[in-house]
């Protein structure tokens, strides 16, 4: 886990000029990124008090205010909690360029997790998307370490 404890992600942030940042993913977040990249596994973390599983993993359970240490694997499949088809253009602060639209922003209940997971859904016709639909993650062939090692989710 030595490597996994030191993952940082470079991000640009700022309205009118480049403000480069080098964000730590944290000890547990790093495990998530490594497991996703190397083994296509999604890792969560379990609260020792209330038993809730959070994904991606982090240290503190908000309502319980206790430290979480128990990493657990969650499924890369789940159901669609909600979604929106984004069709307006805006500047992506990470690139300074217009974000390609339309895309579908999906809030997903992964099997085995108690909070939700945010990602893309590959369908952009809102009439064809149903809340509670079963969805699964489609992984990138070339994975470099980061949330977008999942290409998107798709309805099954």
């Amino acid at each position, binding site marked *: 886990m030595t490597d996994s404890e030191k993952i940082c*992600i470079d*991000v640009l*942030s*700022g*309205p*009118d*000029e480049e403000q480069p*940042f080098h*964000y730590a*993913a944290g000890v547990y*977040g790093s495990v998530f990124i490594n497991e996703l990249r190397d083994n296509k596994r999604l890792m969560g973390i379990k609260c020792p008090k209330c038993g809730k599983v*959070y*994904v*991606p993993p*982090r240290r503190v359970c*908000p309502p319980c205010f206790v430290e979480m240490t128990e990493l657990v694997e969650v499924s890369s499949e789940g159901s669609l*909690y*909600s*979604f*929106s*088809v*984004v*069709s*307006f253009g*805006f*500047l*992506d*602060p*990470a690139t300074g360029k217009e*974000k390609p639209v339309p895309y579908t*922003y999906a*809030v997903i209940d992964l099997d085995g997790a108690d*909070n*939700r*997971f*945010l*990602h*893309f859904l590959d369908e952009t016709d*809102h009439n064809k998307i149903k*809340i509670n639909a079963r969805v699964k993650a489609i992984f990138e062939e070339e994975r470099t370490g*980061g*949330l*977008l090692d999942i290409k998107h989710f798709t309805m099954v």
Partner: protein
Amino acid sequence: MGKKVAVTGVGITKQSSVRHDVNGVEIINEAVRAALEDADMNRADIDAVVIGNMDHFEGINYVEAWSIDGNGGLMKPTMKVTTGGCTGSTVAMAAYYHVASGLFNKVLAIGWEKNSESDTTGAITTAFDAIWDRPVFAGAVAGLAVEAALYMHETGATEEDAAYVAVRDRKHALNNPFAHLHINLTIKDIMDSPYLSWPVKMGDMCPRTDGACALIFSSEDVVDDFPMPPAWVVAVANRHMYTYTADADFGSIDGPYWMTSLEAASKDIYSRVGISDPLNQFDMAELYLPYSFAGVKWMEALGFTGRGGGPELLRSGATDMGGKCPVNPSGGVLSSNPIGATALLRVADAALQMQARAGARQVPDAKLALCTGFGGCYWSDMLILSKDKP
């Protein structure tokens, strides 16, 4: 116990999509001078200044220091607070605590934004976690749209129900000379507007505005110094529940949550003030409704009606001017949205109502008002104002 606190001066700038005629410091100063004039004060009478905005909209770091020549705080105690969309109500609460603490008698509270100076959605997107949220996030519009989609799914409410709010608030704005948008719309107009992020359409969404607002908060010991009657702050409360967007729970109709932060803040402030029937106890409300669906669902979270009862509440006319509890006589956020000032404008307009000087938008005999602020990751601020000293 702390000092009782009242709003004793109100300053609001002209608001529009672009204010090329003023820079940031100047638009702040426009609001400050208006508030001082309204309160019949000089800058020398101010004990302290509290200011707020969202830094990334203008790209200015240390705004309280940068704006000192315009914000009235030169050689005075000056502080910056910020909490994203709810910054304006956070400023109001901070000014309330400045005075209630007994440390200061007359405090200037300023909220401002020049949203024309950056890409609003790009800047809002940077509010969210760089590693876990930003790669897929699309600012407030999509962040709210997923709540709307789930609300319709859970309750059977329709896009037309939401459009009622968009029409109502814009109609109310016709009575408010300060409002950014003065447009008389129909439900069909809203329904015909293009989708920004399904199910949210252009007409459902607040504009982005350049504008500023300044209020004077005063201690009970000095309220007689002012020409206008005091608008008393009865209580303030808030909840900022979520760090990770993925933890936000939009609820299910029979589940434990509906809008967690607003329900928790309501419970807190209602219990302190003795509110059990908000629809009948409040005479009016200035609510931070950044998009139309909020005007349906959040009324339920605020306890104005039961879960799923929002559409019926609206169609009863209870929230229109002349109804039981008019909502957003000012036209609300859907008509004016200089983000760092937006929630402070709610307090400003409620204060004008308590002082019975809201002009064409006055709710007759208004004595008790509810104000909210919304922002962050489904965060909620609440203030209750009263005509009578609490």
